[in-house]
């Protein structure tokens, strides 16, 4: 359960961004959370809500977009979404594919009202 630590990091960055935009009113924070990130979206939303409650940022919303696991085939360069843990290239059958998506834990946008 490290989502509280992660939510704190989200808020730190949000506050830094807001300092650069005096007078802006924050409505929403967009995040991308990969299925291999080890972060639970519900627990993260809950932690974020708890941290924001009673502060000047309330009632800001967190929108989490999940990102599927993707592998790239070094033989034929095909990038594919992994289903049922199948990592063999569906195009050429190569086994040594590498992870190129699904580990994300990143911001995507801030929704603001600026003066």
């Amino acid at each position, binding site marked *: *359960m490290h989502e509280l630590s992660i939510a704190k990091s989200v808020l730190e960055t949000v506050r830094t961004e807001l300092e650069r935009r005096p007078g802006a009113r924050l409505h929403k924070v967009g995040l991308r959370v990969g299925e291999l990130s080890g972060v639970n979206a519900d627990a993260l939303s809950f932690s974020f809500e708890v941290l924001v409650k009673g502060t000047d940022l309330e009632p800001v919303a967190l929108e989490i977009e999940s990102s599927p696991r993707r592998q790239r085939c070094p033989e034929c360069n095909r990038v594919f979404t992994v289903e049922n843990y199948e990592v063999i290239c569906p195009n050429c059958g190569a086994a040594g594919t590498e992870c190129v998506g699904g*580990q994300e834990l990143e911001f995507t946008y801030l*929704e603001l009202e600026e003066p």
Partner: protein
Amino acid sequence: MNRVPLEKKVLSENDRLAGDLRARFRREGILCLNLISSPGAGKTSLLEKTLGSLARDERVAVLTGDIQTDNDARRLARFGFPVRQITTGGTCHLDARMVDRALGEWRLEELDLLLIENVGNLVCPASYDLGEEAKVVVLSVAEGDDKPLKYPAIFSRAELLVLNKTDLLPYVPFDLAAARENARRMNPGIEILEVSCTTEDGIDSWQLWLERRREATRAKRAVRAD
């Protein structure tokens, strides 16, 4: 309403610190490994076997993380190498700042191997870069062969899987082939070793892996120094 794109990692501050640590380790030619497992899988036992087999003049140090107690540091200190306990006081993982602080006044130029034993937890430590050269995941056969599928974050990031407690295989329903297959489904490039810290079976394969990685780190440093 204005939607402003923000391309930034959530843990960018940790990543920045970890990047600084990695640069320092590389400059000094230090191989840094981050050992991750569930509680009781055998990280400390593996480190005991490792330190016990090294000559006293080897340039090795250990940081060991736990929520409470300095038991592990005391277990590891008897081998005579520098060991420091990081007690997180509740936090379920180590982060780059804790490692940076724990290194304190250690003279990194006097080291070439730094072993970091993370807090026993297969989930949270996976998210935090500590500046290591590689993550090593330890899984004991008492835990179940489907763990790689249940904990994708760590198994997809680790370069090496050490399957420990193989001496217990006759007593537990653990399918080695299934465990290997599951680990490769999470991470096709992962290396896998089978060891028992109790009987010392396979420990030589771990020592060999470690020596190969240390050699690679030394070689990279020599290339940069030229």
